[in-house]
C-alpha cells in the first residue's frame, strides 16, 4: 500500500473516531462511526485483504450501523444533546486512553521490527507449492494474484472447521433465543 493512502485512510479513521465523541447529536455520532468503518475498510483493502475490507463495509457499515441509526432515530434522543459535560467521565476516559497507550507502546517496543514480505511473483509462487496443483488457489498464486477469498475459505473450512460449526450453532441459538424471548405469549 502506498504510504499516502495509509495516511489518508488513517486520518479519515481518526477524524471519524474523534467526531463520535465530539458530536452532541447521536445521529451525527453514528454517522461518524460509519466514516471510521469506511476508513478501516480502506486500510484492509490497502493491505490486499479485499474480502475482509468488503465484509467490513457489508456487515458493519451496511447492516449493524444502519440498525443503530434506526434505533437512535426511533428513540428520538433529545436530552442527550443538552446534557452538560461533567469532569469525572472525561477523566476516566482519558485514564483509559493513557493506559491503553502505555500498553501499546510496551508491545510495539518489544516486538521485532519485521517488514511484511512483498507480494511479488516469487513469494506467491513459493506459497503456491503448499496447495495441490491445478487447484484454483495454486493457479492464481502462480499467476501472481492473491486469491484472498479462496484462501480464507480454504483456511476456515480445513483448519478451523469445527470451531466454525460451533460458532454457527451458537449464533443460531442466540437468534432463536431472541425470537422466543420477544414472542413470549400471554397464557
Amino acid at each position, binding site marked *: 500500500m502506498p504510504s499516502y493512502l495509509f495516511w489518508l485512510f488513517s486520518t479519515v479513521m481518526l477524524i471519524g473516531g474523534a467526531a463520535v465523541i465530539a458530536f452532541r447529536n447521536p*445521529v451525527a455520532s453514528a454517522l461518524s462511526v460509519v466514516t471510521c468503518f469506511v476508513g478501516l475498510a480502506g486500510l484492509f483493502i490497502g493491505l490486499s485483504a479485499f474480502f475482509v475490507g468488503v465484509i467490513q463495509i457489508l456487515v458493519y*457499515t*451496511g447492516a449493524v450501523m*444502519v440498525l443503530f441509526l434506526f434505533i437512535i*432515530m426511533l428513540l428520538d434522543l433529545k436530552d442527550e444533546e443538552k446534557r452538560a459535560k461533567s469532569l469525572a467521565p472525561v477523566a476516566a476516559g482519558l485514564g483509559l486512553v493513557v493506559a491503553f497507550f502505555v500498553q501499546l507502546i510496551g508491545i510495539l517496543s518489544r516486538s521485532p521490527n519485521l517488514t511484511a514480505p512483498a507480494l511479488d511473483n516469487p513469494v506467491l509462487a513459493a506459497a503456491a507449492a503448499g496447495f495441490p496443483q491445478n487447484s484454483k488457489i495454486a493457479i492464481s498464486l502462480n499467476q501472481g494474484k492473491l486469491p484472498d477469498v479462496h484462501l480464507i475459505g480454504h483456511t476456515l473450512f480445513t483448519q478451523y472447521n469445527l470451531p466454525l460449526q460451533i460458532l454457527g450453532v451458537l449464533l443460531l441459538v442466540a437468534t432463536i433465543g431472541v425470537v422466543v424471548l420477544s414472542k413470549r405469549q400471554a397464557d
Partner: protein
Amino acid sequence: MDLLQIAIIITKIIVLTFLVVLPLVPVCVYFERRFSAVIQDRVGPNRVGIPLTLLGFKKDFHFFGLIQPIADGLKLFLKEDFTPAHVRKVFYWMAPVLTVVPALITVCVVPFGSPISLFGHCEKLVIADLDIGPLFVFSVASLSIYGITLAGWSSNSKFPFIGGVRSTAQMISYEIALGLSIIPVLMYFGELNLSNIVQQQADHGWLLLPLWGHDADHTLTSKLLFWFPAAIAFLIFTISIFAETNRMPFDLPECETELVGGYHTEYSSMKFAMFFMGEYAAMVIGSAMIITLFLGGWSIGFGLDAYVAKLHIGDFYFGGFIHMGCFLTKLIGFILFFILVRWTVPRFRYDQLMKLGWVVFFEAALINVFLAALIVAAPELKTAIIGIGAVLLVVLTAAVIWVAKVSEETPKVLRA
C-alpha cells in the same frame, strides 16, 4: 503506475460512468413514461421538439418525444430549490448525495464488454477488475440505505419519517435474501470476479441457457441439472432487486396513497431529482448484475463470442464494442421488464412484503444453497451419499414448510 495507465483509467471512468450509465437514467425515465402510456392506452409525452409553427410552418417538428427527458431535467434544474425551515439542514443536504454516489460507484466492477486491444495493448472494458465483484456491489449499494433513512429523519415530519423507516427495514431484510440467493451461482463458477464469470458463460453457455460449449468439465447433463438451482436463484435475486431498488410492487417507502410522497416529500428541485437519479441508477446496476450473473453479461451466445472477439482491422480488435452493444441491448430489455412489472403488478401490503422476504425467500434461498451444493458435488460422491443428501434435503424442506405453516396459524396475543 505510469501516466498512460492513469489516463486510461480516468477515460474508462468518464466514459463508462458518465457517458454510458448516467445517460441511461433519462432514457429510463423516457421509457417509463412512454411504456406506461402504451400499457394504459394513452399517447404519452410526444410533443417536445422544435416549435416550427411559431415560425409559420404547418407542423411542429418533434422527435417522437425523445427530447422529453432533457426538458424534464431542465425543468428540475431551473425550479426553485426550497429548503423548509423545520428540517435538520446538514443531513437534509447530505441525504440526496448519499443515494446517488453509492449507485454510481458500483458501476466500477460491471464488465461492459470483452477486452479490446489496440497496438498490442489489451484493455478490459471494466473500470476495476476486482476479485470480489458481487460482494463489492452489495456492500457499496448497502450504503445507499443511509441516504433514504437520513432523508426521512432529517425532513423532521411524519410521513417522510415513516417512509424512511419502511425503506430501511425493507432493504435490510431483502439484502439477506439477495446475498444468499447468489451463493449457488458463486459455487458453480468458483469465482467472484465478474469478468471471469462472464467469460466462463461465453465459453460454456449462459447460466440460464446452457446449450453450447460442452466439454469434459462442463457436460450438458451437469449444466442442465444445475439449471434448476440457477433458476430458483434467478427468481429470488430478481425479485429481491425489485425490493432493494424500491420499485413497484415493493415501493412502499414512497407509497403515495399512504405517505404523500414518502421520504422525499420535503424535497424539491434538483435534490428531489437526485433521489430519482439514485433510484434509476440502482435499477440500472441491478439489471446489470442480473444479466452478468445469469444471462451471460456481454456474451452474444451460441458460440459466436470467440468469433466476434477475433474481429479486427489491422491491430485494432474491436469485438469488445460489439459485446458492449449486446450488453446494453440486454440491459435496456431488462429495464423495460422492470417498467412492465411496475405497471402490471399492484403494490404489496407492508406485512406481505416482510413475510415474503423473511418467511419465503430467506428459507428458499437457504434450501437452494444445499440443493446447489449437492448438485455441484455429485460427480465426486458415491451414489449412497447422494441419496442420503437428497433425503436430508427433502426432510429439511418439509420441516421448513411445516414451521412456516405452523408459525402463522393462530394470531398470538402479545403481553402488553
